């Protein structure tokens, strides 16, 4: 199994620990990763809102690189997967948009053909063969009450992100992360408004306090269920919860902190990697006590 690894911007630059954990975990699970000279995706929360044509062309360039390598793209971020999946679909469906984009890209020797698919690491990990391998590679359980936060752009709008799964009567909500974490002995908890936004785009674009007010709401629902830790699959969501609890804590003096992890960090810990190897040592909300409590140093 082989993918073009789309790191995005925030992970390799702000949270390289997630990248380290991901590379180690993929290696153990037999997922081969190929690095290509990608640019920013660019985000559905910035470039797409400001200049759609630029958003589409840059996304198309990234897709072309993977096409040229003959590989499907695996992203690590809810925003990247949203951009690249939608752009891929749009360009596959619209001849006129494809023509317009290719006119620009051809000057740089790229041509969008529509030959590959885009996926998120969560969906890669959720395949039967990988799950079987994960069960074999797991050397210790992580018994914690875990909350999952998927990140809006990973699954919405469902008509674009999960068209096959959608019936007219219902919308799509993901379960993959909860299931994977139960394999490594975690206790995935339901909590109110589990699919509420983290607040990050509002904070980044317009009003930081308002963004954190959403984060605070979500954290409170988790506290109501005595959730001990949070698992995310997007670096922006991560920052919103990790840094957010520091910023919110200055005002609220809240003592009940919820350490946040990137999914592959948790899988890595279950495979026997150390806290340092998966990079949790640099998180703002420290997980040390929690990990000590289950015998992981």
């Amino acid at each position: 199994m082989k993918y073009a690894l789309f790191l995005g911007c925030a992970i390799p630059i702000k949270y390289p620990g997630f990248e380290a954990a991901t590379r180690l975990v993929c290696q153990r699970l037999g997922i081969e990763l190929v690095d290509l000279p990608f640019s920013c995706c660019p985000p559905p929360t910035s470039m797409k809102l400001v200049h759609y044509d630029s958003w589409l062309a840059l996304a198309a360039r990234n897709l072309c690189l993977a096409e040229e390598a003959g590989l499907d793209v695996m992203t690590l971020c809810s925003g990247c997967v949203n951009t690249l999946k939608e752009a891929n679909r749009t360009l596959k469906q619209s001849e006129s948009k494809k023509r317009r984009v290719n006119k620009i890209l051809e000057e740089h020797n790229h041509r969008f053909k529509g030959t590959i698919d885009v996926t998120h690491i969560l969906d890669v990990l959720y395949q039967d063969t990988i799950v079987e391998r994960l069960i074999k590679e797991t050397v210790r359980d992580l018994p914690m009450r875990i909350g999952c936060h998927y990140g809006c752009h990973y699954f919405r709008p469902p008509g674009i992100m999960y068209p096959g799964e959608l019936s007219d009567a219902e919308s799509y909500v993901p379960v993959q992360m909860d299931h994977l974490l139960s394999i490594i002995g975690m206790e995935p908890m339901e909590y109110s408004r589990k699919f509420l936004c983290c607040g990050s785009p509002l904070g980044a674009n317009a009003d930081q306090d308002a963004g954190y007010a959403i984060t605070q709401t979500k954290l409170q629902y988790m506290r109501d269920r005595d959730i001990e830790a949070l698992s995310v699959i997007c670096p922006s969501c991560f920052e919103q919860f990790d840094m957010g609890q520091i910023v919110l804590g200055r005002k609220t003096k809240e003592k009940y902190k919820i350490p946040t992890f990137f999914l592959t960090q948790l899988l890595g810990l279950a495979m026997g990697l150390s806290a340092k190897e998966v990079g949790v040592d640099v998180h703002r909300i420290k997980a040390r006590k929690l990990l000590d409590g289950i015998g992981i140093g």
Partner: protein
Amino acid sequence: MTTIKLWKFFAREDLYECYQCARCTGSCPAMEVAPAFGPRETILKCLNVGHEKVVQDERIWLCCTCNVCEDRCPQKIPISDLLVALRNSAARRGNIPGRLVMAIELLAKTGRSMIVHQLDEMRAHHGLAPLPPAPVEEIRAILEKTGLREVVEF
């Protein structure tokens, strides 16, 4: 100043499909914490006062782009397309938050959305090789051609 053809992004007739039931708005996180229009009111305003007025209002930038509204809409109105189109149009008229201008400038100049600072050491701490530079020249050239300068200088 160039404008965009808003109704190429979102079919104008779809505005009339809206029941004004507010099922979308009931789940809108931006409305809970900020004076955002929310999806129902955005549609109503497009009908009542016209999109030309709507795109002049800075409150349209309070939307999180969470797309919950589109998910919840019983009429399957592609609301996210409307919200993207309105903001594209607003940006061309100079209605764009300063932070977003900075973010786009950074992206256009560096090919990435994050400022790189003491990166090699940080990556080495995690046992990772340095990050190869982004193909800046190619990205700039593409963004020149797509007309990003209509909105942001870079």
